[in-house]
């Protein structure tokens, strides 16, 4: 009688029904380890009902009040009166733990998962603070009551998702773009770089261009009805009257338009942009929620070029610091800052991941720039062609790790948590 299935042993897998949560700046992915995509992807931006607290207290008990205070998931997209939209993460790390805990609890409830029986794998950026690690473990063990938990570096997870133990991970998220060397599944902290020139920054660049062209960015939820108009004609639409919709909610909805523009229009030129090249850009039509549609040519290239040369695309009234680095420059910086013995490995295994990297032509540009800057090294870029794999790279890596038989010795168990205490676990650098 065999004790374990023969097939999983071949690839070293051993499922223990791990739950994997990857909390990103704009999306949180939740699912079971061993699967290829997260079961649930919810927006990390959640709504907070500010004024309703008082009303709710009157007719319901305290617990329901607390549950309803946060609007997570689809309800965060509803134009509810007085609902402030929160961004629980700043600089890629959790700043508002209440909101994040709510998101986790909401999504685990959606999965019908009994957390007491599932180990919980969480991802963290490599610049995460000790206090944050402690808080994450505290929520996992104290309120979710998981039997075991682990914090995996998202760069390591992304490298694993690409099937690499040694890699240079370029993760272009929404808030942060980071470059992290991974050696044998261990992050190198000192050469790692990160910048704010990522997805949200690109959104702002797009907004700057659209506003300068005088385009009405009324979000979809505010439009009651509209009429079809010819391209270039002024839009004909009527606004819906919604009471007390907060600015933060409107901003979130506007950013959805910008994201759509980013996904469908933006393109990174394969060589650094010059006025001649941008003049030759092919025009594409974009229709805004108001019904207004127009063509974009050079703007498609110039907006995305800002990711590579942030110093050349400053916002009004803002100065770009001298330390500002484009994506390719960061990659080159990191490689040059690494030990000379590992540079070849890193350059040969550049993994590009994150939703922000889905801008058309971004990985080709990085590849070209780095090849040019590091001519002595053989540069090879690995970027998943599948959109889902690119967006959820860190989650998929966590899914791979959580279903590995040899990983199960690394879990921090509840017993360890109770006996040794969180401070010990975090300070002992249990999470390498």
């Amino acid at each position: 009688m065999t004790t374990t299935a023969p097939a999983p042993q071949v690839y070293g897998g051993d499922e223990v029904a791990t739950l994997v949560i990857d909390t990103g700046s704009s999306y949180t992915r939740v699912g079971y380890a061993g699967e290829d995509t997260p079961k649930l992807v919810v927006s990390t931006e959640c709504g907070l009902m500010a004024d309703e607290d008082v009303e709710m207290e009157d007719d319901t008990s305290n617990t329901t009040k607390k549950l309803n205070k946060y609007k997570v998931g689809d309800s965060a997209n509803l134009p509810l009166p007085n609902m402030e939209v929160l961004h629980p993460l700043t600089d890629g790390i959790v700043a508002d733990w209440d909101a994040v805990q709510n998101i986790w609890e909401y999504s685990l409830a959606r999965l019908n998962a009994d957390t007491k029986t599932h180990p919980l794998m969480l991802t963290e950026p490599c610049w995460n603070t000790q206090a944050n690690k402690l808080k994450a473990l505290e929520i996992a063990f104290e309120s979710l009551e998981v039997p075991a938990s682990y914090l995996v570096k998202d760069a390591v997870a992304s490298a694993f998702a690409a099937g690499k133990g040694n890699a240079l991970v370029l993760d272009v998220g929404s808030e942060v773009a980071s470059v992290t060397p991974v050696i044998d599944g261990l992050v190198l902290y000192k050469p790692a770089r990160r910048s704010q020139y990522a997805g949200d920054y690109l959104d702002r660049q797009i907004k700057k261009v659209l506003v300068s062209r005088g385009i009405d960015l009324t979000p979809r939820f505010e439009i009651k009805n509209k009429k079809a108009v010819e391209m270039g004609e002024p839009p004909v639409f009527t606004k819906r009257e919604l009471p007390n919709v907060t600015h933060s909610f409107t901003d979130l909805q506007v950013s959805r338009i910008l994201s759509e523009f980013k996904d469908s229009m933006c393109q990174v030129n394969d060589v650094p942009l010059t006025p001649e090249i941008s003049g030759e850009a092919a025009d594409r039509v974009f229709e805004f929620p108001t019904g207004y549609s127009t063509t974009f040519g050079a703007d498609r290239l110039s907006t995305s070029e800002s990711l590579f040369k942030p110093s050349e695309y400053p916002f009004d009234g803002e100065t770009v610091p001298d330390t500002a680095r484009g994506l390719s420059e960061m990659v080159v910086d990191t490689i040059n800052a690494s030990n000379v013995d590992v540079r070849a490995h890193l350059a040969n295994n550049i993994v590009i991941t994150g939703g922000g990297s889905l801008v058309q032509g971004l990985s080709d540009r990085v590849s070209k720039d780095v090849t040019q800057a590091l001519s002595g090294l053989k540069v090879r870029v690995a970027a998943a062609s599948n959109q889902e794999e690119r967006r959820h790279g860190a989650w998929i890596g966590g899914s791979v790790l959580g279903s590995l038989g040899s990983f199960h010795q690394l879990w921090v168990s509840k017993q360890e948590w109770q006996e040794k205490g969180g401070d010990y676990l975090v300070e002992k650098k249990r999470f390498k």
Partner: protein
Amino acid sequence: MASSSDVRDVLDLPDLEPNDKLTQQPKRQKLAAPVGGKRMDGMQRELFALMGENTPSVSVTKDSHTSLFKDKPQWQAKLTPWMWTPFQNQAREDGLILSHWVRGGELTQGDQYPFAALNTQISFPELTQEDYDGLKLATPGWTLEETRYLMHLCSEFDLRWPVIHDRWEWQTDQDVTMATGETKGAEGTESKVKEEDKDVEMADVKEEKENKDESNKEKSEKKESAPPDGTARTVEDLKERFYNVVSAMSKHPEKYTAEGYNMTTVKFPRDMEIKRKQYLERLLARSPAEIAEEEALILKSRKLELSATKMLQERQELLKLLDAPQPTSSVAQFQTSQGLAHLTSTLNDKSKKGGKPTKEGSVGPQAPDRGGSVEKTTKKEDTKEAKKATKEDKKAATTIAAAISKKLTTKEEAAYGISYHDKLTPGVYLRSSKVTTFKPTIQTKIVAALQDIGIPPKPVMPTAKVCAKFESIQHSMSVLLETKRAADKLETEIRLLRGQKGQL
């Protein structure tokens, strides 16, 4: 009747091996008859002979392994269940119980978790102050605590040096000092480190003053070797320290044993390592143009190498040809007049190449005589003898030369029909056959032209003079014909152009 072995023979297939799976089946059939009953005879035997060892085209067998078809699903059989079973990982110390799917039932207690075997770790013996003193590990720039921190990192990151160097935070890290249980606290050790480092720096400064002549580069290297603070240690610093400690420990294998690491005496070649890294860095810093140039040069050198070896090979072959003695197996070939003529001509050739034929020729025959006398006489006599011999040689040579030069005038030579040749082809030939010929097309034209002026295509009396004259005529005729052809061509061209001009 062709048996299968014949067929195999024709098709060049190897003989069937006795343990070949294919052959097992028919063999069993074949064996079944004789073993089971008596010897076959009559019709049965004939039938069997027809069948021979031939395997049937479709093997009909109940053995599922050799069958071409899938087994029927066994609907009636009991299914093996997969159970959600709790298990314990022996690689863990806390006895965490997780669950996984197991085929066929419960995992019994005490069963080894298959992945626990993969848990390999390196651990080094904890260094105490006693060990530190006993092994004489005290070196400037390093303290016991820092060394312990290093060994701790080495075991934690399994000697992955890039990672160890990345995580090296001695000044700020207090874990290890806390773990040592010393009440001194981290600050005390830190200040100690700093003091020691200062000392080292001071020492360095002194040294630098002493060696003022040394280049700046060396100075900077020295500074590198003694970093000003703990965090700025290079990978080489850490490696050197680690291998020093391990080497010291390895001398007492009974006292210190490392788990998962074979402690041996290793001398870390620090300078070589630094140099290697510098080379590597320079290699990586090449510009695309430099790389292209280098590649082109490499290609060129490869080509040169290839041609050099080829040339060497050809040269060797040539030398072999030259060195090899002529196959002069018998003297018979020189017994005919033709053979002799060939011999003389080749000898003449050689002597001409030599430059001084008379001298060599005269020395040749005397050599054996002299050799004989040399053996008997002393050295002095030998030299005298030699001088004498050379004098005689010179005398003979001059007389011969005089005789030759005196011999005949050109007129006499012509009269006697004597001529000298640079090279003579062996054997007898007709002089007329040696008259040069041109390309067939030109030759026919020349012959036609010669006939026009009444000269036969071959000289009637081919004396040397006639042949020479004939050749010169032939040559001038060819030149003439060539000129005529060119003139004709030009003329037609001129006419054509004139015609065109007239048309215009």
